[in-house]
């Protein structure tokens, strides 16, 4: 009997439950997958919806506000008047335009009536023509006949006809249809043109009226806003993408940042606190960099294609190499394309970083492209020189050989060939000589442009108090907090060794002893000569160069006098070929006097170019030796303690320390910033930073902090730079680092950087990347903008902005000093250089920059503005830098190079008399303020001598200057409003001298021509004519109200039209 109580489980057990459960599960996962597909992976959809809702709400609220503002403008009498004009004009042409409209309507009706029949027949004809063209010859005739028969029609059409639109029915052939079809269109076009001609005055008035509205309304008009509203409401949920296949840019950022390009200014507050929806804070930047071309991520970083989450889109995950720049470093994005720009409008933080990199001496250890390029250029020039010299000697050998071969040639032709060859080689030698000469000159110029960040340490023995050196080395910041010398983490014995090495490698020479000067006069000189353009005397406002208050506590007086008198003076010349400093003996050997300067710069031993100047930025102020003594004496009085109070450092002369010191100096790369005997050719010891921002993070050594950095979230370039800059030794960590060999420790010294400085440098370094965008997108112009870029490097290098103003809104260091706050002293400020390129001739400028005294003998003067106490110093620019500066100023003012002066008509006698009269008129006594070369008069002069004008100025500028100087240099002492327009020319605004009766020429132009012809004799004559007026001195200040006016205008002016030009529009 089968046991029925127990069933076979395989057959009887039901899997139903399992099946149901797993089926439900599979359905649920399917739903999950679909949800994930539509929403989970596409969070941007909710962003878009959210934006639409919020933006619509915002616009609805905003439109009434704008509407009332608009209404106020619409109700204003000006607008009403304009509106009236429009209406009147409309009324005037109404009948005619209505008539034209009617006719156009009839033509339209006629056109549509004919279209159907014509296009149908045309399609049929086209097929027949094709058939005829592609059939056999036999068939062609019959088909052609058939077509002709068809074309003959007739086709019956009913057409509305001008002038009253009556419908006329008629029979047409195909050809007639076609003609009619074309004619209707032509007629209509003519009608439309007629109409627009008719309405032109109306539309112009309307344009004027609408322009009035947009000019007076802040933001978009209500109508435009309504358009935006409608656009937002109608927008579909879709990915918004910028695609520039040319540069490989695909950015979908605007999918979530939907408001970024809106013309309506949207703040986070407007959108209920949602930062993501704001409009771009600097719309100007978007105008300069069209987002359709540049996208977003090339500047901002981030993964422009990603949309699945904020972290992905912003590239803030492990494997995305270009994460979004944080807000404080947002300007880093500019650097990749603007590496050549030293000064970048819209990017002050980045510009600061670039500046600091040079100023704090980072460049002494770290190579960075474009920074301090002279040593490399010199090396490459020398390489080329070597090459040419080899070529030359090879050519010489070949000449001899060719002649030999020619002499031994079997026939005349062969001989001639060899002799020709020899001639060719001779010519090539002369060519090579020419090149060598150029390279030699270039190498000399480059040698002059080579500047070190720190002072020359060969001079310590003649300059320093020895006991001060170890004090300084131990902690420079303790002695002078604002110094650019960084603090090396040196042990006492290291300090001793380095001090001893530096001391012993210094040049031993005796300086002439200088008598004491007058400190009171020195103080005045120091504060007015322009020293304060770079230097400071207290720690509260450090600037470009050192704080000099304690200079007396370390330097000796004699050296200081020499330095102030001529900072370029070297104790001994350096021969880069022999790699040593020459001594008097070297000169004596060759029977030469021990004289070396820019004119005597050849080495007596080997004829190579010598370094005859100090490698310092400090220029020569061309002060007399007495004045130099006064200033030095003044600086010496500032010291608070005597150098003898430092601990005695007898070990400085211990020769056993020298080797260790040498090794340490080498290790710490001191020669990067200082000139040190025997170490002139030491390379930079740091890593190159040009592309540091895109160095793979694995190659950046966080050392034992790797783990910590990862966990604390700063395992990235920003984190590394910030920590390194704040505390360079931070990565020297671990249980044993104190016991570790000092050679294994990090070498980078502490700079005591402030937080903004760290941020600026971090921004700069983060931006220093291998760019992902093609080079043609970079800001590397070939035209004048390139001159501007190159010029800024020189301007920054020499701190021209310490004394001069280059851009409206930028103030020079001197302008901020307390002394220059009164009107009298404001007149003593060095000239503003805005528009300088339009003002002066480039040839003159070149001469002036080479020698601002404009005189080779009397150098204790200023070539142009002798009346200024502050003096334009001699920078000893090389021709390379002068060329860059001249081109810079010309380019900044959009002046073409080379400059060809316009020809000025010579003056007639009558005109000369008129010009004299105007020059000496009571209303405008020009010579009152302008210098004349007469010392008694020039004491009170506040403007340049007219004799300079011919060579110096451009005539067009001189005329513009006379018309409105405050437009060119806000705040200038030159009065505005001297001339007023009458008809097409300007006349003097004051009482016109009688002689001008009947003259209807342009008076300022007459003056310009006179100025450009003036001679010293003529000037004396003028002085005689206006002698009585020159005696009184009140007149100078009469222009006071004008000053004030221009001052306030300056304050109101928006910053930087020049700057905007530089930014590369």
């Amino acid at each position, binding site marked *: 009997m089968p046991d029925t109580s127990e069933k076979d*489980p395989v057959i009887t057990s039901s899997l139903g439950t*399992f099946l149901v459960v*797993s089926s439900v599960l599979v359905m649920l996962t399917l739903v999950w997958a679909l949800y994930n597909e539509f929403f989970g992976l596409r969070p941007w959809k909710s962003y878009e919806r959210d934006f639409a809702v919020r933006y619509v709400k915002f616009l609805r609220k905003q439109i009434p506000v704008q509407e009332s503002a608009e209404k106020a403008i619409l109700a204003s009498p000006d607008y009403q008047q304009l509106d009236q004009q429009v209406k009147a004009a409309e009324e005037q042409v109404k009948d005619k335009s209505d008539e034209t409209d009617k006719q156009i309507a009839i033509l339209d009706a006629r056109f549509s009536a004919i279209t159907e029949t014509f296009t149908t027949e045309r399609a049929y004809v086209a097929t027949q023509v094709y058939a005829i063209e592609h059939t056999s010859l036999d068939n062609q005739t019959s088909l052609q006949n058939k077509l002709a028969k068809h074309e003959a029609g007739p086709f019956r059409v009913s057409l509305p006809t001008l002038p009253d639109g009556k419908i006329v029915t008629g029979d047409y052939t195909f050809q007639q249809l076609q003609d009619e079809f074309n004619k209707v269109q032509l007629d209509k076009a003519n009608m439309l043109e007629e109409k627009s001609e008719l309405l032109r005055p109306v539309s112009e008035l309307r344009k004027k009226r609408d322009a009035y509205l947009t000019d007076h309304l802040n933001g978009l008009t209500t109508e435009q806003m309504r358009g935006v509203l409608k656009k937002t409401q109608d927008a579909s949920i879709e990915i918004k993408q910028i695609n520039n296949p040319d540069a490989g840019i695909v950015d979908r950022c605007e999918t979530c940042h939907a408001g970024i390009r809106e013309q309506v200014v949207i703040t986070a507050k407007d959108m209920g606190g949602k930062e993501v929806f704001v409009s771009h804070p600097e719309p100007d930047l978007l105008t300069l960099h069209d987002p359709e071309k540049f996208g977003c991520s090339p500047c901002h970083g981030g993964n422009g294609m990603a949309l699945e989450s904020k972290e992905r889109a912003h590239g803030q995950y492990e494997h995305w190499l270009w994460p979004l720049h944080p807000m404080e470093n947002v300007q880093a994005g500019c650097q990749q394309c603007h590496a050549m720009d030293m000064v970048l409008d819209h990017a002050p933080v980045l510009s600061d970083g670039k500046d600091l990199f040079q100023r704090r001496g980072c460049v002494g250890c770290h190579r960075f492209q474009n920074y301090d390029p002279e040593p490399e250029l010199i090396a490459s020039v020398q390489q080329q020189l070597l090459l040419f010299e080899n070529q030359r000697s090879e050519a010489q050998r070949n000449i001899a050989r060719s002649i030999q071969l020619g002499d031994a040639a079997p026939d005349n032709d062969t001989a001639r060939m060899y002799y020709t060859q020899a001639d060719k080689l001779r010519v090539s030698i002369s060519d090579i000589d020419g090149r060598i000469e150029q390279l030699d000159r270039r190498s000399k110029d480059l040698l002059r442009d080579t500047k070190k960040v720190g002072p020359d340490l060969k001079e310590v023995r003649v300059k320093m108090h020895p006991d001060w050196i170890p004090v300084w080395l131990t902690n420079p910041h303790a002695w002078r907090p604002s110094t650019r010398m960084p603090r090396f983490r040196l042990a006492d014995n290291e300090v001793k060794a380095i001090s001893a090495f530096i001391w012993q490698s210094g040049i031993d020479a005796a300086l002439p002893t200088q008598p004491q000067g007058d400190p009171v006069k020195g103080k005045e000189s120091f504060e007015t000569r322009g020293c304060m353009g770079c230097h400071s005397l207290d720690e509260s406002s450090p600037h470009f160069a050192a704080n000099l208050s304690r200079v007396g506590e370390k330097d000796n007086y004699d050296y200081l006098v020499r330095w102030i008198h001529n900072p370029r003076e070297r104790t001994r010349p350096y021969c880069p070929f022999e790699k040593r400093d020459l001594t008097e003996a070297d000169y004596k050997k060759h029977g030469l006097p021990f004289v070396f300067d820019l004119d005597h710069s050849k080495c007596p031993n080997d004829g190579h170019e010598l370094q005859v100047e100090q490698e310092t930025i400090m220029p020569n102020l061309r002060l007399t030796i007495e004045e130099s003594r006064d200033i030095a004496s003044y600086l010496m009085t500032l010291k608070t303690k005597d150098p003898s109070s430092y601990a005695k450092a007898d070990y400085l002369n211990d020769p056993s320390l020298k080797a260790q010191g040498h090794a340490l100096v080498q290790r710490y790369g001191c020669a990067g910033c200082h000139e040190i005997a025997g170490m002139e050719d030491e390379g930079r010891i740091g890593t190159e930073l040009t592309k540091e921002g895109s160095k793979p993070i694995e190659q950046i050594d966080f050392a034992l902090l790797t783990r910590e950095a990862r966990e604390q979230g700063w395992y990235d370039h920003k984190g590394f730079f910030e920590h390194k800059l704040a505390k360079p030794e931070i990565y020297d960590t671990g249980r044993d680092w104190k016991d570790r060999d000092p050679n294994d420790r990090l070498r980078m010294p502490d700079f005591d950087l402030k937080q903004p400085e760290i941020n600026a440098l971090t921004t700069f370094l983060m931006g220093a990347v291998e760019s992902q965008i093609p080079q043609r997108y970079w800001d590397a112009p070939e035209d004048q903008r390139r001159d501007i870029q190159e010029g800024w490097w020189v301007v920054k290098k020499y701190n021209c902005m310490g004394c001069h103003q280059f851009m409206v809104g930028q103030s020079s260091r001197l302008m901020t000093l307390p002394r220059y706050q009164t009107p009298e002293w404001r007149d003593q400020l060095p000239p503003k250089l805005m528009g300088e390129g339009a003002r002066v001739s480039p040839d003159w400028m070149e001469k002036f920059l080479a020698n601002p005294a404009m005189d080779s003998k009397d150098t204790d003067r200023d070539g142009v503005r002798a009346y200024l106490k502050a003096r334009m110093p001699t920078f000893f620019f090389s021709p390379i830098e002068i060329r860059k500066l001249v081109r810079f100023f010309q380019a900044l003012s959009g002046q073409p190079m080379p400059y060809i002066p316009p020809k000025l008509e010579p003056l007639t006698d009558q005109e000369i008399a008129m010009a004299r009269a105007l020059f000496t008129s009571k209303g405008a006594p020009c010579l009152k303020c302008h210098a004349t070369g007469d010392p008694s008069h020039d004491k009170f002069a506040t403007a340049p001598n007219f004799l300079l004008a011919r060579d110096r100025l451009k005539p067009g500028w001189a005329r513009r200057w006379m018309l409105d100087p405050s437009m060119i240099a806000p705040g200038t002492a030159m009065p505005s409003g001297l001339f007023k327009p009458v008809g097409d020319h300007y006349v003097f605004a004051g009482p016109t001298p009688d002689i001008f009766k009947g003259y209807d020429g342009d008076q300022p132009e007459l003056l310009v021509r006179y100025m450009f012809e003036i001679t010293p004799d003529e000037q004396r004559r003028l002085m005689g004519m206006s002698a009585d007026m020159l005696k009184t001195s009140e007149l100078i200040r009469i222009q006071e109200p004008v000053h004030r006016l221009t001052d306030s205008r300056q304050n109101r002016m928006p910053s930087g039209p020049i700057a905007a030009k530089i930014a590369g529009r």
Partner: protein
Amino acid sequence: MDWHQLWEITSAPDNVPIVALILLVPFYTWYGIRQALANDRLIAQLEADPQLAKTHHRKTMPWKAGWSKEIPVWPYLLRIEFLAAIVVTVILMVWSITLNAPLEELANPNLTMNPAKAPWYFLGLQEMLVYFDPWMAGVVMPSLIIVGLIVIPYIDANPLGAGYYTWKQRRFAISTFCFGFLFLWLLMVVIGTFIRGPGWMWFWPGQTWDPNNQVFEVNRDLPDLFRITNIWGKTIFGAIVMGIYFAVSGGVVHKLFTWSDWNKKVFAKMSFLQYITMQGFLTIMMLLPIKILIRHLFRIKYIWVTPWFNL
């Protein structure tokens, strides 16, 4: 113990299959063996009771009267397979929704990762590169594995154990599989995943994967230990050593193969070609664990150094 590191490795999306493998392989091994032992018991019972053997319904369950002796594939097998398919589908879908493909940064030929690990199923091969030269580990051994797997049916002289789990009847085959696949192959995959860190260095579980870690791995070849410098000397020396190895390991394999009476019968049924093929594959397979051991214990790299290949 660096728990953070351990978690980082085990939670990496790449390593999910290996973590699952560590749990699932032992489970299914245990499960299969349990089934095999149950079958063995049944076999013993049926052998003792010929009557029952005639009527038994070919299931592991005890015999019940009336149960059909055979049942059709449809629906009884297919419905279970269908169920399994659904469950696997659910698992795969959930897996693919929750874990994205672990993409890394754009490839940069100037900056390659260290180590560049193979996909998990090839990690065993990559680990073999540590012990053999690339020619052996990359070409010869994988070919031998494939050929060896193909050859199995042709050298299998055991007539029993097909279509059901059994331990008693296929002791040698199962042991060889467990050693060759579970122990050698999977162990190497696990080592490659969890033990080999930066620079393919050996890190015990819980040790921090420090790229700057220093390991003492100065290796030498066996002939160097005997101060043989001449390359021909090395070749001959290695050949002798390998000869001795094959002789000894051949003996050991033979001993193991003929351990049980059952296998002795199987051995008797094998042709010489079948036997020598099996010997060849097994002795070569045994080279792997031996090389792993001498490498780690005695720092010996190659046994047989020749101008053409190294072993």
